[in-house]
């Protein structure tokens, strides 16, 4: 069972990475226009700044 000493911290760490990524996406306002973001990919205009 000593493998648990590695696996549990690893799983918590990976989960934590996901959580931090979620915070980042939230802070950079990526959930404010889900519909528009989906449509924008069809636009020909090159958009270097995804978020206003």
């Amino acid at each position, binding site marked *: *069972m000593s493998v*648990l000493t590695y696996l*549990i911290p690893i*799983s*918590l760490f990976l*989960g*934590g990475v*996901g*959580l931090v990524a*979620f*915070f980042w996406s*939230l*802070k950079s306002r990526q*959930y*404010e*226009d*889900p*519909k*528009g973001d989906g*449509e*924008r*990919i*069809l*636009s*020909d*205009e090159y958009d270097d700044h995804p978020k*206003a």
Partner: protein
Amino acid sequence: MTVSPAIGAASAASEAFEDHVSASACPACLAAPSAEQMAKSGDIKGARLMLSLPTAHCAVCITDVERELARQPGVRSARVNLTLKRVSVDAEHGVESAPLIAALDRIGYEAHELDAGMLSATETDKRGRDLLMRIGVAGFAMMNIMLLSIAVWSGAEAATRDLFHWISAAIALPTVIFAGQPFFVSAWGALRGGRLGMDVPISLAIILASAISVFETIKHGHHAYFDAAVMLTFFLLVGRYLDYRTRAVARSAAEELAALEVPRATVLRDGAEVVVPVGDLRPGDLIRVRPGGRIPADGEVTLGSSETDRSLLTGETLPVYVGPGAMLSAGEVNLTGPLTLRVTAAGKDSSLHRMADLVAMAESAKTKYTSLAERAARAYAPIVHLLSFTAFGVWMWLTGGDLRFAINISAAVLIITCPCALGLAVPAVVTAASGRLFRKGLLIKDGTALERLAEVDTVVFDKTGTLTMGTPKPENLGDLSAQDLAVAAALAAGSSHPLARALAEGTVAVGCAPATLDDLREVPGYGVEGRWQGQIARLGRADWIGAAPGNSTATHLKIGAQAPITLRFADSLRPGAEVAVAALIAQGKRVLLVSGDVEGAVAALAQRLGIAEWHAGALPQEKAALVADLTAQGARVLMVGDGLNDTAALTAAHVSVSPASALDAARTASDIVLLGQDLSPVADAVGIAVQARRRIKQNFGISILYNAIAVPIALIGLATPLAAALAMSASSITVSLNSLRLK
């Protein structure tokens, strides 16, 4: 978004109002006074304008709108938010929204100005993000704890189980403390207020589950409910967030639709024109109102003659001639000539304010609607507490005082009955339904509006501006010779009177080129005059032209010594009005038409739309009284109206709808705002609301069913953390899926 652009937007918006006053005669673009608007304005470089785009729906719309706006002078950048159907424009100081709206209109996009109450909008965004963050934390914790719990459930023993319980505790306790705060705060508030809301059993269950799990962990027990505590928090937060978002989206768009008010008036003091806030007007002040401007206070005309449009106050479509001595009410729009007024009543005494009093009265007469969720919570909270305490008492007695066992049972009961599904039952359906309505162009301002809409059996429509567009269209252009038409077109181009503008647009539409006129001039209050091939040509009022006055909306043309020609106008029907009325009648609703307009116009419209019951010449009080009467007879009334004269009736109705072009006061009074021009979604909305209510009831049924199975198991002491987790997630997921079935 920071604070400063929001204030900038406020200042830009208030400047935009001043521009409206001088440049636009569109009655829907102007409205009554507000001192509040003034207070918000400030001088800050750069402005952020918000425009609502009800018709935007695809990638091409985004590109078109952004490109067109970026081309406008002074605009730095524009960004469309398709989810909220609005565009935020970053512009230099002094850029106004009116030209931007006009530019969008030219490329075929309907746009409305959104108010600069952006400060509060950012606040609410922050709350939404805060809730999302708590959901994220709870979700993270739930998954990790579940991973450990599954190991325990599948047979981890002794030291391993204890270790897993300890790790779970280390994750769960901070999570519950952080993510559960919204429930704890509101439960505490309810308890202090002596109430027992839904949040009290929720908080109790979360806290009890955590506490008992810690205790069991210390005692090397078999069962720990850490996963249940966190899962509970997660699902309930999701429900809370859906609920919040529905309200926030509606609030931000509906209440920020531009206030469109005249915050200032031009006062003559010692012969000089001074601009003052409307709130500072005193009876006896002399005020000047330019053509296109809205009358800021009640007054008597002392100088000048003109015509006024009082359609938003009374529903009359015909402009009214005014000259010295005429009494005007605040809210009327001056159409053709400059007027000087002596203020007779301002502020609290003005007719606008009396209208507001009428609304306040209707408001207080209205009984508070108890939503399905509130009713469920009211029944639910006591039952749950009772069950839990009974279980505790009975097991104490049965086991002869085994406190640990009894507490375990009562916690299990609390956890299992905890309203995950109940908490999701209403918000999930309302979110799905309001999303569908939003795509159809309807904005729900009030959470219970959907439920109230489902109960409607009687629909009362206003005429001007609701069933009709409130803009006239020439009817008999075909009767004119090409030559007369050309002269009429040239004369019409010389005035900004609504009829003249409608005529000018009408002649362009039939492909007529205006004739060349000399000495073109507008005679305020009468019409336009010019010289065509040496003869005097006039377009205007019947008595000025020498024509017989009629009782329909008309203007008259006379060229030289020819007999006068009457040009008749009809108010054009709002698109979708026929469909909406027909669909409502087909649904078995009783449909009524109530208007302040003259009998002929109302009767004609009623006949055209197939409405059997109609009332003409109704005063604002009479409209409200009619709605109150219907309500007293047991009818559930849906009122659809746009004018100030409808405001009291809108408030008195069970549920109300107003178009986006409506006056601010009317929009505020109504529960649902129609974003586009089309009226047909109103009928669909009723159908969707009925369906939504059915789904909500089904959801309650589902959660009751789950409880009926799980509670007895918990009561007899057979509930394990696994059973609790299964019941909780299964019921929440079924309820969510059922809500998504809404078609």
